[in-house]
């Protein structure tokens, strides 16, 4: 034939061996792909997949829930990707996922983008903890709302700022002369929404300069993707300061600051202080559960507490609705017991009843209505 084929050497045989290995590996995968392609529907009948995405705030709990619930109902796989609350809302509205998750309730404007009713299912309560990384600093950092706002506005830049010293008189000497490395979210985030909702309530300057929302124009700091990313940044950066869901700080052994609440008490974030905030604001709970409980009344209340929600269309696919309703009922009863070990606060008992009524509203339809 041609010179190329004649010039077979040891190398070439090795190479063709390699390529044949390569080819057979590909053939294997191919057959797998073919099986998946053809059996897609058959497999789906046996195991139902429900896709969700959104908030990173409750992700440690959700991943636990979805993995635990497989033991209860092995025929249901709930795939949850923590892409951020902004993503949860967006992809739900785009109908690319079956349910969304967000810590910030959807705004009226967002709800108006679809004619289909969307239900907010509160799942647990959590605290946005102010966490920091100060090697050599022992003890609890105390912060007031004004100082917190100034830190995130970039007005306080050093850890030994007089204002920080004044709040922590007994620890003043151990506050280092280093930069405050602020970390915040780079993606659309419910944690950001809760945090900035709080800052907007307590700081007029924050409200006018930055405002509240899932995606923001941050005056200072590094952006990290997800609660995971922000915690990672703080952990990697001595002098770091940021806001994350409590469990992220705890599982990473990062200290959390005590925040001065409306009653002037310095409160640490905990399931207890979050429940207190929820109890204090219980009277304000609207029928659709879309409520902000930041800067709550009460001396035990942690000021940056929030509900986190699953977002579902009221009309769900018939193949998914019954199983998903069952899952939600489980999450609201047995699932609640998993909350506390992961530093989330379970929903108050009287609220669980109301939420279950909401879950019962989920209807099974043959096909989800198209169009926005």
């Amino acid at each position, binding site marked *: 034939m041609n010179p190329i084929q004649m010039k077979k050497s040891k*190398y070439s045989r090795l*190479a063709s061996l390699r390529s044949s290995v390569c080819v057979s590996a590909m053939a294997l995968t191919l057959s*797998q792909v073919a099986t998946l392609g053809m059996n897609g529907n058959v497999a789906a009948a046996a195991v139902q997949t429900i*896709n969700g995405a959104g908030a990173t705030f409750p992700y440690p709990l959700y991943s636990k829930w979805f993995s635990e619930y497989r033991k209860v109902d092995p025929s249901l796989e709930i795939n949850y*990707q923590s892409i951020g609350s902004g993503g949860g809302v967006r992809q739900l509205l785009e109908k690319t996922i079956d349910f969304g998750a967000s810590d910030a309730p959807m705004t009226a404007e967002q709800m108006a983008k679809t004619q289909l009713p969307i239900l907010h299912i509160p799942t647990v309560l959590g605290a946005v903890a102010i966490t920091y990384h100060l090697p050599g600093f022992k003890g609890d950092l105390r912060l007031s709302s004004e100082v917190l706002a100034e830190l995130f506005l970039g007005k306080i830049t050093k850890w030994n700022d007089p204002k920080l010293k004044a709040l922590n008189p007994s620890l003043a000497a151990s506050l280092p002369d280093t930069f405050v490395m602020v970390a915040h979210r780079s993606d659309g985030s419910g944690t950001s929404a809760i945090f900035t909702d709080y800052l907007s309530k307590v700081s007029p300057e924050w409200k006018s300069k930055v405002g509240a929302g899932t995606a923001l124009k941050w005056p200072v700091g590094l952006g990290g993707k997800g609660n995971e990313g922000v915690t990672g940044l703080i952990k990697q950066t001595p002098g770091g300061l940021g806001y994350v869901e409590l469990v992220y700080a705890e599982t990473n052994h990062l200290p959390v600051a005590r925040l001065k609440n409306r009653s002037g008490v310095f409160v640490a974030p905990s399931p207890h202080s979050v429940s207190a905030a929820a109890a204090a604001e219980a009277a304000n709970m609207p029928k659709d559960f879309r409520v902000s409980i930041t800067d709550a009344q009460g001396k035990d209340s942690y000021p940056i507490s929030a509900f986190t929600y699953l977002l579902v269309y009221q009309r769900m696919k018939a193949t998914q609705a019954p199983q998903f309703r069952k899952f939600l009922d489980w999450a609201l009863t047995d699932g609640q017991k998993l909350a506390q070990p992961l530093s989330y606060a379970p929903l108050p008992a009287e609220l669980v009843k109301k939420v279950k009524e909401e879950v019962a509203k989920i209807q099974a339809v043959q096909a989800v209505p198209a169009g926005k």
Partner: protein
Amino acid sequence: MVGLLIGCAILALFPLFSVFLYVCQQGLPGLHVNFFTSLPKPVGEVGGGMANAVLGSLILITLASLIGIPVGIATGVYLSEYGKTKLSMILRFCTELLAGVPSIIIGIFAYSLFVIPMGRFSSYAGGAALAVIMIPTVARTTEELLKLVPVHIREAGLALGISRWKVTLIIVLRGSLSGIMTGVMLGLARVTGETAPLLFTALGSQYWPRSLDQPIASLPVQIYTYAISPFEEWHQQAWTGALVLVLFVFILNLTTRMILKRHAPAKD
């Protein structure tokens, strides 16, 4: 001056050693069977692997190959065998440009073309995005290598009265089969590590792939997610994932080089 040039070479190679050293050092401890057989565990639980991501990557690459390889090869053959027309000049240029389109933009493209209409993140969308990236690589390599087949072989075939398409398919293509394998493998190597276009097409999953119209995990996306997370176990897994990915790409590249070495005896 000579020292300066040697310095440049060392400076350029230093990062390679550093990256490779760290990937091995941090990744090797996590490299055991579990990594390839277990699903990821929920946050905070130890153990687990990236089995679904490894399989997911293989599936995505296969899907991409199903479209990318035939289209790439056909384009390469066209450019090499019918490459003198004005249209093919434009086409050659466009193939180069397509190779230069940032992969994140291909992600947007596949998202709005597949994910939105299908109403779901899926392997199909991810595979399609990767296929677009693969096509120019395969096409260019195929063209280059077909051009190495001497013209007289084609002429000999034509002189025997064999029709042109048979000459092309049987003599030219078969003669440079290993060359085409090279293109394929370069294409595979190119898409294996792609992360950006998968972020909003294949999304991710913590389960075994069940169906192609569902979100699917992939090695690069999993590495990315784990790398930016704060969890030590996940960092460990990210490094191991990186090691697997790098080894896979290296093997593909090495094989390619070996084939090229024997395939192009005349070159230099």
